[in-house]
């Protein structure tokens, strides 16, 4: 029987066989949200009416019969969307007070594609303000809790989307990943998250944090679900100059292939061993054994410049952010503070930005403004760009020896809420393994590979592939997922506590 615990692929199949309607499925998820979101706080806005209307529309199309073959595979399946994607008429805040009350007059390309595919948008999910953070604690609207342990973070910045999927509030979700903001929360909540190749998915309508690093991507509870969503949102968009004009990688076929014979899998020396929690390393090593058993060949690769990636990231991302966030000035939309008729435009801008931006956002704006200043530009922004080139070369070299690369997604499992919120550098370090991927523009997947013995929390394996070869990590991920499932006998999320009120 299809219910909220089913996979998106199962839901899609039941919908197409008319065993269930989209309205029923959507209602079930809205009920679940009403029941558990008080604990998780995954959502900033739930669009009950809009979702049901969209579901009814898909049902009507399907009822007409002749349309069914033209319906997208995910038509009628619900989804949660990170609150950083513009959706026409729906409050969109990017987790910031400065955008409180703003309703975009237009749809982002990804939202438009979801709508066109009949994927039912349940609402907008919580996030670190402007995607700056790794715990969702930087949201101006309260933090999100991890469904595995409500005292812990679901990760960030796409923590709301990850918690919604892990907490069965939605089978699928959209996130964005600038330095690990999809992969890290996926790892911390035991779900699948993919950062596609930069340019693989349109950024049009995605509120920019760091334009050269930001990328939209899918969350799902299985590799196949994630691939199905990936195919819906990917593709060239003439509204985004940086989107790649090439065919979408065949990720769904790759997810179904379940075969890695002859593939060379590179283990990145610099992202293993010391510095990683014991339970994390143990699960990664186990995964390597399973891949070997499935016929893959393991090689060790070295990426010596990765050690500079984190520092370079914290120059490039804040630099671009300082410019991207300049537009929030109260003149055209969003918050306006201090406009009492006596103050000039500059004073109102200043008062609004002072009141509207949170601490971490201000920190990064100041950092970036400094790094771009004349006299410092070459030393900071310029050097960081050189590091970026070196990181790209490290990947290029590694990919001459291996088809995909693997590493842990995060150094640790989900940390306690509040544990790192006063120590920015400790927080930044949770993205140490994910940042190089953004710097190089390649794609990467976070796959849940078990629980750490010491805390019983999920561990994520990162699988990386060369530019526009995203299908490779779906192939490896799908194969490993199947091996793990047969080993465990049940999905990883069945180990998580049931959040629902017992009836």
């Amino acid at each position, binding site marked *: 029987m299809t219910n909220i615990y089913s996979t998106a692929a199962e839901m899609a199949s039941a919908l197409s066989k008319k065993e269930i309607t989209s309205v029923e499925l959507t209602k079930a998820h809205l009920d679940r949200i009403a029941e558990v979101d008080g604990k998780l706080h995954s959502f900033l806005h739930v669009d009950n009416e809009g979702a049901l209307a969209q579901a009814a529309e898909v049902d009507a199309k399907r009822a007409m019969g002749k349309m069914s073959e033209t319906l997208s595979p995910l038509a009628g399946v619900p989804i949660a969307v990170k609150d950083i994607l513009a959706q026409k008429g729906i409050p969109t805040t990017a987790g910031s007070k400065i955008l409180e009350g703003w309703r975009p007059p*237009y749809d982002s390309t990804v939202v438009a594609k979801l709508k066109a595919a009949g994927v039912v948008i349940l609402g907008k999910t919580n996030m670190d303000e402007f995607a700056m953070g790794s715990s969702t604690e930087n949201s101006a609207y309260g933090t999100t809790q991890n469904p595995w342990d409500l005292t812990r973070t679901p990760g960030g910045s796409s923590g709301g989307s990850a918690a919604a999927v892990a907490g069965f509030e939605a089978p699928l979700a959209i996130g964005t990943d600038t330095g690990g903001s999809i992969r890290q929360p996926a790892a911390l909540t035991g779900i699948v998250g993919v950062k596609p190749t930069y340019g693989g998915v349109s950024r*049009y309508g995605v509120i920019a944090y760091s334009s*050269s690093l930001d990328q939209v991507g899918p969350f799902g509870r299985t590799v196949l679900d994630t691939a199905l969503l990936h195919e819906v949102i990917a593709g060239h968009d003439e509204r985004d100059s940086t989107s790649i004009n090439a065919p979408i990688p065949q990720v769904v076929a790759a997810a179904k292939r379940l075969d890695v014979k002859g593939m060379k899998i590179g283990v990145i020396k610099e992202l293993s061993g010391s510095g990683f929690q014991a339970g994390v390393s143990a699960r990664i090593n186990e995964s390597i054994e399973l891949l070997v058993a499935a016929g893959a060949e393991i090689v060790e690769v070295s990426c010596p410049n990765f050690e500079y990636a984190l520092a370079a990231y914290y120059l490039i991302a804040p630099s*671009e952010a300082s410019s991207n966030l300049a537009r*929030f000035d109260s003149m055209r939309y969003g918050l306006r503070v201090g406009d009492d008729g006596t103050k000039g*435009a500059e004073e109102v801008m200043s008062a609004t930005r002072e009141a509207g931006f949170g601490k971490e956002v201000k920190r990064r704006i100041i950092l970036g*403004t400094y790094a771009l200043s*004349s006299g410092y530009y070459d030393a900071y922004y310029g050097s960081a760009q050189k590091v970026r080139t070196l990181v790209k070369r490290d990947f290029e070299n590694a990919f001459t020896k291996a088809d995909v690369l693997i590493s842990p997604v995060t150094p640790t499992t989900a940390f306690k809420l509040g544990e790192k919120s006063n120590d920015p550098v400790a927080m930044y370090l949770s993205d140490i393994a994910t940042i190089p991927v953004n710097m190089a523009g390649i794609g990467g997947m976070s796959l849940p590979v078990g629980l750490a013995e010491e805390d019983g929390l999920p561990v994520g394996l990162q699988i990386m592939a060369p530019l526009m070869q995203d299908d490779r990590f779906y192939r490896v991920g799908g194969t490993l997922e199947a091996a793990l499932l047969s080993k465990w006998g049940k999905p990883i999320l069945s180990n998580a506590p049931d959040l629902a009120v017992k009836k």
Partner: protein
Amino acid sequence: MTLDYKSATEKFEPTLGLEVHVELNTNSKMFCSCATEFGASPNTQTCPVCLGLPGALPVVNGKAIESTILIGLALNCSIAPYSRFARKNYFYPDMPKNFQTSQYDEPICVDGYLDVEIETEDGPKTFRVDIERVHMEEDTGKSLHVGGATGRIHGAEYSLLDYNRAGIPLVEIVTRIIPGTGKYAPQVARAYVTQLRDILRALGVSDVKMEQGSLRCDANVSLAPIGSGILGTRSETKNVNSLRSVERALTGEIERQANRLEAGERIIQETRHFLEESGLTRPGRSKEQAEDYRYFPEPDLVPVTPDAKWIEELRAKLPENPADRRKRLQKEWNVPDAEMTSLINAELMDVVEETIKLGAEPTRARTWWLGEISRLANEKEVAPTSLITTAFVAEIIALISSGDLTDKLARQVVEGVVSGEGSPAEVIEKRGLKVVSDDSALMVAIEAAIAAQPDTAERIRGGNIPAVGALIGAVMKATGGQADAAKVRELLLRHLGQG
């Protein structure tokens, strides 16, 4: 004791630098598909991109790149195979993103020049103006400051913002410093802007209307004691809205700077605003402390990498340099300077050329456009070119040349065409304006004239050819001016045994 312009330039050597901003006449904006029409209601030509809404992204207008490359080629620039946009960061309410997307250290066109000719006391002299760069950027919106004294932001009660102009493609053409112009600096500047305007117009890439702001000139000038070899501190004069103002603003500014220097004061590096009424400038923003715009490459746009083959195709399409063309046409048509100037000032050179290309005789083409057609246009307060097509003018001139129309009849034909009575052929038909050239019809009138003036006829028979004038006049009178005088003369002389 104040220095006048003459004594100022006897003591000091001016060094010029000119920055010209050109609004391209593309149908859509630089980075979005919004319309660019001048004078639309405020904020009606906007979209998420040019309003800088969260999430919106720019996409470069390919037509703007083409226009910029054409400008670069016409100014003898090299076209960069790889150029980029950058962000110029500063806060101002009329700039939606609080950064301007502009090319910076990697412009699309570099290292060109333009030779400009001016009249000097020693005759015509050519100055070479070196072009440093031609680059693309987007325009800002417009602020209207309401209340307060001067329409400036300080002291205003409130400000209105119109973003229709935000994102209009702008091309900035920057010269290197122009030394050695001496007292002719203002004339060189004016000639440069004039020639640039003519080139841009010939390329068809801009409306080049200074009064509407589609062509704007910032004039930099500095002074140094003659022979000192040093470069003085410059000022930058903005708000120069006509060619005449370019010359006036620089003359005024040279005088002002000379007097300050003469009084032992220093020149402040600043922006100054030209005041049209007085011809003076008032101080604006100080540039003593260089503003830090924190430029960095625009990450939302990919580099501009025009194909070499495409550049060569554009080069092949370049129109002739307007200054060269003017000289060539003047020679071909054998026109005196003054009349050529009238043609250019009346903006009629193109139509005259076209009319000639359609077979019209050059002198007639010029005379008709500059004379009768311009006169009618003046009466109606419209452009001559809006009254009648070059094809119709050429047709009428051909009829005059063949003797089918007299000038007098032709004027009526033009008048008919302008009043919408149809093509010249139709007007001639409807109004019955055909020259009487049927010999038998004419012969009746000729015989009547001879009969009326037998003495004159006798003198002609006797060899006094000039006497035929009186008989021609009589025939013309009898035919109501519709006869071709040359034809009448020929028939008369033949009839009287002199043909």
